[in-house]
């Protein structure tokens, strides 16, 4: 029987799921994904995680718990130290596997091999080898499996750049036809960590709400690396958080090139990087008074009604401004 490996639908799932799934399958695993986020999953997460943690980490605890309940044989929680040279993700990503192991009861095997290409790209060999051990695969076989999975990752990233959302891109990879989008009259950027903006429950359906109101949504993941680095150029120092760098660079490029009619920044309760880069983005944008800006803070208790009202008011304002010019 194949080993059933669980992948939580949280954190970097939104960037790496197709790659990880394919890689694990090639190693002989059966991949199980945790369920779509629900109130229940979040509540379980809150129960097992310290109060002071940010919302996405609490939610990730809930998804791990969901996999424990599904009785998987192993949970895939690579320690995401660094996915780009000279950068990190966030201290909590570095400690996440240990936080889980010390707090969630009844865990199966946790595959928490580090991914760390901060200093050198080749470190990925170590990663593939160590993961392979769990499936009795040798270093070469594991490395080959990973190499064969990479094209999927490249296709996935391309689909994201073309404007598909993660779940749509996953569907396209699985052979489905992309859905045609409704007519739009506005372009709005939604800037936030992928695990905040793409999780419909956590974001209170922000993106589909915007689409329904005739808005074409652009996220930082729809931009090429070149556009992102253009945006962060004006910063006095390299931003060392990969996701925040993408968000900041994306927001600033879209702002500088007048590519959008409005920018919505989505921050998570108690997120460290958001508190810094959100501040920078907001200050830079407000100084120019060129593009309307709105900030949404997500926490366990954010009321959907309040957000909807603010969103409607924001869109009215954006539309009104567009007609005025």
């Amino acid at each position, binding site marked *: 029987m194949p080993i059933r490996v669980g992948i939580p639908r949280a954190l970097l799932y939104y960037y790496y799921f197709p790659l990880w799934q394919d890689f694990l399958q090639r190693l002989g695993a059966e991949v199980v994904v945790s369920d779509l986020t629900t109130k229940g999953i979040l509540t379980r997460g809150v129960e097992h995680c310290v109060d002071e943690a940010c919302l996405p980490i609490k939610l990730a605890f809930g998804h791990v718990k969901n996999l424990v309940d599904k009785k998987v044989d192993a949970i895939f929680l690579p320690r995401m130290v660094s996915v780009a040279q000279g950068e*990190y993700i966030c201290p909590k990503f570095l400690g996440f596997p240990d936080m889980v192991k010390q707090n969630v009861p009844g865990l199966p095997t946790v595959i928490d091999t580090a991914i760390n290409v901060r200093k050198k790209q080749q470190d990925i060999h170590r990663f593939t080898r160590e993961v392979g051990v769990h499936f009795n695969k040798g270093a070469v076989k594991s490395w080959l499996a990973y190499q064969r999975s990479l094209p999927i990752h490249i296709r996935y990233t391309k689909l994201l750049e073309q404007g598909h959302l993660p779940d749509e891109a996953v569907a396209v990879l699985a052979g489905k036809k992309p859905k045609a989008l409704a007519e739009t009259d506005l372009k709005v950027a939604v800037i936030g960590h992928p695990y905040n903006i793409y999780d419909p429950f956590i974001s209170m359906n922000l993106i589909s709400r915007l689409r329904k109101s005739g808005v074409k949504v652009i996220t930082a993941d729809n931009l090429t690396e070149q556009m992102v680095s253009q945006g962060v150029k004006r910063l006095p120092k390299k931003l*060392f958080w990969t996701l925040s760098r993408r968000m900041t660079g994306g927001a600033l490029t879209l702002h500088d090139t007048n590519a959008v009619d409005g920018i919505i920044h989505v921050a998570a309760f108690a997120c*460290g990087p958001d*508190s810094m880069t959100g501040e920078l983005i907001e200050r830079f944008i407000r100084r120019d008074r060129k593009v309307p800006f709105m900030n949404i803070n997500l926490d366990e208790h954010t009321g959907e009604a309040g957000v909807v009202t603010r969103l409607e008011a924001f869109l009215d304002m954006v539309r009104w401004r567009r007609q005025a010019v």
Partner: protein
Amino acid sequence: MKVTFPHMGYMYVSLKGMLEYLGIDVVVPPPCSKRTLNLGVKHSPEFACLPLKLNIGNFIEARELGADTIMMAGGCGPCRFGYYAYVENEILKDLKIDYNLVVMEPPEKHIGELLGRIRKITGNRPWLQVIKALRFGFLKAKAVDEIENLSYQIRPRELVKGTTDRALEKSIDLVNEAATPTALTRALAQAKEVMAAVPADRGRPALKVALIGEIYTLLEPYSNVNIERHLGYLGVEVERAMMLSQWINDHLFMGVVRNLPSSDRFKKVASPYLNHFVGGHGEETVGSAVWYAQQGFAGAIQVLPFTCMPEIVAQSILPKVSENTGMPIMTLIMDEHSGEAGLITRLEAFIDLLQRKHEQKEALTS
């Protein structure tokens, strides 16, 4: 040029000593106060960590006293500290407060970058002079540490409440005023006498509690609502996991000074609880809890600012350390709403627990 820097406990003694040794004008910001905090909170992002908010307050208050240049440390992630200076600069810009910003941080490319930054402060003064000044500042930090360590032993045993605090202030002032290495040697000797003169029952046994956690909230008494003092008043002998000289060596001097008590002793024992560094001092915090338990401490208290990322990782692991070692650990989260009354109540309850545990142990072993 008038140079200022953010407060962090008695760090000003060391930095002021170093800069004035070179004949550079220094503006020490007024000590952190309610006003400092209010200014900081008003102009900083809501979820910024407390040190950033207090830094902003320090810089606004230092500007009122004529400072025009900020000197501070930086870093290259993953914790927020590495981007502090730049976010603070943008905030100040919008307030129309223009500072020259000089950030001492590990160079991105080569050591020349760092030397260039030092030059922005020291101008054309010869490097030998600069090195002497660094050494002098460092000696001051060590002197401050020595005095603070004495206060930890004396305060729980003082006969009249508050005498240690006054002696400590006086001793620090003596060290602060010394302008040359020779004067510093004399000042330190004098300071030790002042501390020795505090009437105290020196043989009295006291519970030993370790203060662990995030460096700023450990070192800056305003940010930890004077936790050291309150523990002392409760008859507890404190040991602080991180002292000023160590931090200066690690973060401003890039670790050039050898043979200091190093946080390596903590890192070594952090595994199996935490198996990777997590930025800031998260790994050290977990390790220090293990280490102090091994040293037989009665308990440990972790202090951290609200939303501090590395310490939240540590916080979620400490309960396991406590469970396995049997040493009680309490976590105190500091933010702009932390008040003295609440702190004292929590400390009393915790010390009470340690006391009872201690008595049980005594009863069992005697």
